[in-house]
């Protein structure tokens, strides 16, 4: 088991190398060089050259890559071209805000999904099953940023019961656990949770249904086990598949919150990324993408290892 975890971790090295190449390439995919994009077109050539030298853009690409990789490995993500502050600080504070929202959405979506999916699989009446199927279909089909707007229209504009945007009251400096901040979280959390809700409900429903049709369930029923105990056995068997899907969805929440954060002006990584794109602040774009991808990789690794631990059928040694 430990050997497997170690092997997966080692396997992650070449992937991480590839990711770093891709993230580095992001800057150089951009038309023109990164400096010309931010200086006025009539800037004197010396200034432009000086800036290029300062940011290291005058060196050949492989050299630039190795320098960037070296610096990045020490935890230094560079300096924001827009604000002049350290990218690590900017991404760090935004990442915290994104995580809070993601955790809330994950908890909400997964809890609801397990309840809905299981009850649909168990449902004797077709109506319950149909209803849950419909909910999950809507979950995977709805454009979540549009749902965010609709939620704002209903609850903020028409009813006026919840704040339309921001992380907290106007003088808020950061997220704290209080009523006002929680109220600001409600709409973004719901909007963010629709996709994972749809996907996970679907998976839970089909996996539990499949497990229920397996012969060991018939055997348990035949030996007279109580239904609630059987449910435990069923869920245990359905868990690995569901966990894998949940892990992927949790990761996608982090990356997918960009649109929701933009609608709600939630100061997270997505919001940061979006504004960096429009200011053509490439170090921020690079840094945010790298941090999010790194987090996503570690999350996938964790899910993979947990899945191996939960599922005795997978023997990886």
């Amino acid at each position: 088991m430990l050997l497997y975890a170690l092997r997966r971790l080692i396997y992650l090295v070449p992937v991480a190398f590839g990711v770093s190449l891709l993230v580095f390439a992001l800057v150089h995919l951009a038309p023109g060089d990164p400096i010309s994009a931010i200086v006025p077109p009539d800037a004197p050539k010396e200034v432009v050259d000086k800036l290029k030298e300062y940011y290291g853009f005058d060196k050949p690409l492989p050299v630039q890559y190795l320098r960037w990789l070296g610096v990045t490995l020490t935890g230094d993500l560079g300096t924001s071209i827009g604000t002049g502050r350290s990218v690590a600080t900017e991404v760090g504070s935004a990442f915290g805000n994104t995580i809070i929202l993601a955790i809330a959405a994950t908890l909400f979506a997964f809890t609801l999904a397990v309840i809905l999916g299981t009850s649909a699989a168990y449902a004797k009446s077709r109506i319950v099953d149909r209803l849950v199927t419909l909910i999950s279909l809507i979950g995977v089909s709805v454009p979540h940023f549009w749902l965010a707007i609709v939620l704002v229209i209903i609850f903020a504009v028409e009813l006026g019961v919840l704040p339309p945007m921001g992380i907290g009251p106007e003088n808020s400096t950061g997220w704290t656990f209080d009523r006002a901040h929680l109220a600001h979280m409600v709409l973004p959390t719901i909007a963010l949770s629709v996709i994972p809700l749809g996907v996970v409900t679907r998976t839970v429903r089909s996996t539990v249904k499949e497990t229920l049709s397996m012969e060991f369930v018939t055997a348990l029923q035949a030996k007279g086990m109580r239904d609630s105990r059987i449910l435990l056995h069923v869920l245990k068997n359905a868990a690995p598949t569901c966990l894998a899907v949940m892990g992927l969805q949790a990761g996608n929440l982090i990356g997918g919150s960009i649109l929701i954060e933009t609608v709600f002006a939630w100061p997270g990584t997505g919001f940061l990324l979006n504004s960096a794109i429009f200011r053509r602040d490439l170090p921020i774009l690079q840094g945010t993408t790298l941090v999010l991808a790194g987090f996503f990789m570690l999350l996938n690794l964790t899910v993979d290892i947990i899945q191996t631990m939960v599922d005795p059928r997978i023997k990886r040694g």
Partner: protein
Amino acid sequence: MDTLLPIQDRGGPAQPLLLATGLRKHFPVAGGLLGRTTKVVRAVDDLTLSVAKGETLGVVGESGCGKSTVARLLIRLIKPDKGTMVLDGDPVDEPHGITVNELRRQVQMVFQDSYASLNPRLTIAETLAFAPRAHGLPAAEARERVRDLLSKVGLDPANYATRYPHELSGGQRQRVNIARALALRPRLIILDEAVSALDKSVEAQVLNMLVDLKTELDLTYVFISHDLNVVQYLSDRVLVMYLGKIVELGPVEAIYGNPQHPYTRALLSARPSMDPRKRTHEAPIQGDPPNPIDPPSGCRFRTRCPFAEDVCARLEPPLADAGAQAVACHMRVAGSGHSKAVAA
């Protein structure tokens, strides 16, 4: 008219149709921290065999002994790590010999799983026409050949050509598989557990058909099976395998009438007796075959052999002549050091 004709005999009846020398196949097993190859499964180890023209060579052994690997090696579906093959005098896959594709024109195979070995998306006619078409037979001739093949295996062309595999019974599917193996007019057919999955009654029909086809088309068979009775019924010579090695090889009467190797004896006495007075009271062989990843030193059978002695662990017994057959056992080698060794 028909352009894809049977290959003519070249070396005369005395020359073996297929001669395989020192065939070896080890499959790597990934392991360790970096997933490097640290262990190998010794599926087939230095196997030498010859198949005479017109004979049926039976290959028997427990599951996992490397029978199917031998089949796939002989038709080059897997490449041997070592060893040479000579087909009717022509070395295979060597500068002055014939190519693997030319080998496959003359050697064909019938697989065990009649369902998995037929493409579910193709009709029977399409499946049968595939090989001839791939070898450049014109469409009209291929169509003619499909009809001919179906009739040969006892399926009415008018009824079966346009059907799909899932519409056929297991026996019918296996007949189609045999027809496909015949499609290129090969000289040697490797039957890898070809009838094992069939019901007994169907099995008998297919076996009889195989016997008839052999005479009619002048074929040579390598018949691989775990069913000792079927092998006895069909074979001229029998090869007994244990953990990737030949333990005994000889004429069917000698192997069944006077088995020399303890393993062959154990296998044969494991057959249910037809005579109620000759009940088998004790299991003639204990335990499972050892792991082929790490086979025992010396004689591979020694861990389950009731006569095993020190020499069996130290030395690997050679395949030596012992009467009518060849046996790989220290007890049959004079002066081998085994207490029961034959006198010089």
